[in-house]
């Protein structure tokens, strides 16, 4: 009953949660950032009444739509699995966690689904200003949605505004939960990260068209809008990430120590940061390590004299506080995914700066030798997101709610067979979806602005014929 193929219900449920979240997260930040870029493009089109820009908006809208569909359907699974696989968690946090979730639906999902339909299908039925308002409402909806779900997640990492009653967390101060400092930092990080996902996609698509000299006048506009977005995004990610690291030292020291593979509290009066390490949970030390002095102190405290606690000391502290048990996360995936995220973040900033520099040189439309790099760049923010989630969610184990509820106590008592079956089914469906999404995005993006194959009634009714030409 308790194991199948050597996996327990807990293992499988954790794998299922990771699967659902990570697949869902391929689509969500894209939606958040992309809606904003499209809203900006449509605003430019609206102000200039330039049919080329209107076409451009519709073109990117089509790509948005292809992606949005998958984001919505994978999101439903995300919500239901709290009840299905994590009954203990639902019972424990329902009083608190349910509210931001309900707010997300009430304030965001209805807005997005209704106004996206109006924007796309209703273009000829509502006035131009209402169409513009609709896409801004969609953009606001996606951002509000991200805000509430991050507030919910932040509560699990840093519980505030609650008291324990009959073995569950009960809300005492809603405002404290909404203004959870952790939540606000994370929201900034997540939102900036979303901008990079969309920005590098739009940059790639625009660069491809610029290189092929197709609709240059339109795509140079989207290229510039995306470049500014990429600058805000990659800069913002790094700044917010730095803030987050520093709050982790205070609130989730074990996670921070795992990020840095810092097994023992440093002996001197400063903390080095390892550049490369081979952490081993078995030996409780790094098998190999290359460190730079003082950098750790700067990253964690903005000075060169303070030091954070090491994993081994924290383990002892937690045992004293919470009773015997293993409080050490699995360090090497946390350490390496954290480094992958940071590295990719700096790569994004670097590429953005190179193009900002080219812009200043007036060489932006010139398809230089670097353009192929831009075609590969959309992968970078996705990989950074993926690594970031791995680092932050594995880094807080064994806690599902920091210091209050262990993951092992949160899981539903399910027959592992069913979890395995559903997991397999979700993998098949998700892999198919990713394949289809990438295939359709690539196909539609490369086809560019033209009369579409199909005058579609159900969805993409892409009408790229300029407003003026029709009259």
């Amino acid at each position, binding site marked *: 009953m308790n194991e199948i193929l050597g996996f327990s219900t807990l293992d499988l449920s954790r794998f299922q949660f990771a699967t659902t979240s990570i697949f869902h997260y391929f689509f969500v930040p894209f939606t958040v950032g992309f809606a904003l870029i499209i809203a900006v493009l449509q605003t430019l089109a609206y102000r200039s009444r330039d049919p080329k820009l209107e076409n451009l908006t519709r073109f990117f809208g089509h790509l948005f*739509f*292809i992606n*949005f*569909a*998958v984001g*919505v*359907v994978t*999101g*439903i*699974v995300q*919500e239901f699995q*709290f*009840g*299905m696989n994590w*009954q*203990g968690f639902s*019972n424990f946090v*329902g*009083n608190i*966690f*349910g*509210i931001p*979730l*309900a707010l*997300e*639906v*009430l304030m965001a*999902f*209805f*807005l997005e*689904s*209704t106004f996206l*339909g*109006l924007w796309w299908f*209703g273009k000829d*039925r*509502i006035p131009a200003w209402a169409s513009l308002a609709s896409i801004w409402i969609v953009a606001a909806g996606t951002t509000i949605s991200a805000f509430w779900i991050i507030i919910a997640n932040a509560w699990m990492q840093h519980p505030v505004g609650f008291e324990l009653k009959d073995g569950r967390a*009960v*809300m005492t101060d*809603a405002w404290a939960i909404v203004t959870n400092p952790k939540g606000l930092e994370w929201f900034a990080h997540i939102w900036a990260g979303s901008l990079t996902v969309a920005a590098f996609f739009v940059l790639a698509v625009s660069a491809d068209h610029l290189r092929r000299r197709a609709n240059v006048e339109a795509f140079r506009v989207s290229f510039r809008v995306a470049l500014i977005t990429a600058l805000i995004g990659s800069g913002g990610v790094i700044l917010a990430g730095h803030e987050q690291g520093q709050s982790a030292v205070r609130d989730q020291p074990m996670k921070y120590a795992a990020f840095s593979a810092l097994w023992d509290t440093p002996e001197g009066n400063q903390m080095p940061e390892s550049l490369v390490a081979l952490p081993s949970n078995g030996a409780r030390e790094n098998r190999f390590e290359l460190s730079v002095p003082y950098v750790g102190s700067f990253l964690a405290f903005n000075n060169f004299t303070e030091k954070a606690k090491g994993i081994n000391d924290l383990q002892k502290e937690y045992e004293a506080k919470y009773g015997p048990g293993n409080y050490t996360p699995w360090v090497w995936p946390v350490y390496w995914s954290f480094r992958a995220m940071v590295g990719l973040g700096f790569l994004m900033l670097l590429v953005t700066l190179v193009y900002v520099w080219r812009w200043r040189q007036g060489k932006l439309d010139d398809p230089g030798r670097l353009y192929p790099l831009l075609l590969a760049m959309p992968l970078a923010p996705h990989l950074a997101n993926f690594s970031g989630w791995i680092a932050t969610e594995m880094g807080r184990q064994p806690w599902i709610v920091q210091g209050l509820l262990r993951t092992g106590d949160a899981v*539903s*008592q*399910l027959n592992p067979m*069913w979890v395995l*079956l*559903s997991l397999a*089914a*979700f993998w098949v*469906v998700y892999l198919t979806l990713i394949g*289809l999404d990438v295939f*359709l995005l690539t*196909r*539609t993006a490369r086809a560019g602005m033209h009369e579409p*194959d*199909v005058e*579609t*009634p*159900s*969805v*993409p009714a892409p009408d790229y014929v300029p407003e003026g030409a029709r009259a």
Partner: protein
Amino acid sequence: MTDLPTLWFILTAAIFAIYFFLDGFDFGVGALQPFLARSEAERRAMIRTVGPFWAANEVWVILAAGVIFAAFPHWYGTLMTALYPEFTLILLALIGRGVAFEYRAEINHRRWRTFWDVTSFVTNLLPAFLWGAIMANMVRGLPIDASGRFDGSLLYSVNTFSVLGGLATLSLFVLHGATYLLLRLDDDDVLHGRARRAALIWGAVASALVLAFVYQGFIRTGLFGTFGLQEWLFPLAAAVNLGLIWLALTLGRDALAFAATGLTIVFSTATIFGSLYPNVLPSTLGDAYNLTVQNTASEPYTLRLLTWVGAAFLPLIIGYQAWNFYVFRQRIRAHDEKIPGGHD
């Protein structure tokens, strides 16, 4: 009203009723498509009747789940764990359905479209059936132990009563989809005539299955035992409605027929939730273990907050969703569809 748990139980029932009303016709249209549409133009016309609406309709179930999570966390965990296979299938179906809607038109190729048509048919059928099975299992009760956890085989929920419940909702949704098509398709269209015939047939099927379900519910679960003096009210209302549908169909009153099928769904949902009250999930292991509105509810502070939030946003949502329906109010003609040449 100071009894916030009861208020939120009623609101949960109302949200489910709205969900079944709205997504019910989406499911019905999807299930009817292979039988009614004979050409690509007709298939497109049918999809277009729900095109701008289905996504927003589906959000009501996300809200229902969110509200149960926030207002009745204990119910949320137990129900979804106990009916794990059903919910998994519903989720997979909702994924397939949403993608089928969006991707079908992306590529103008016959095999591509056929693939999505088949996907759409199966994934509309499945949730329509499964929601009924889930509701039937909620009414019938599940083996819930003293710790409030489901203590039974995961196939416990597969039984004649739940299958009957599934078939009843499926037929009701198909009927609702048919009357929705009557309202949304141009009356001169040949498709409209076929939808009317489908409505008549499914009206008969749904009447029979719903009555069978009510009868089974009455003898097996004492479905209406908690209604007190009004125990006859909801089934009677449902029966009157089903009669009304037939009358409306024969008189050619499309709007009335749609309103009547919609009301049947609303009354059926009210019956289910009304018969549950004051429980949310009865235990078959003993009344002491029943999950009730009161013992699964969140604390007053959470419920008060939820009430404020709901009061602020629900009217707004209903408002702009109604406006959405108004914007796309024109009836659809299959012979207006532009079918491009291509790889057909």
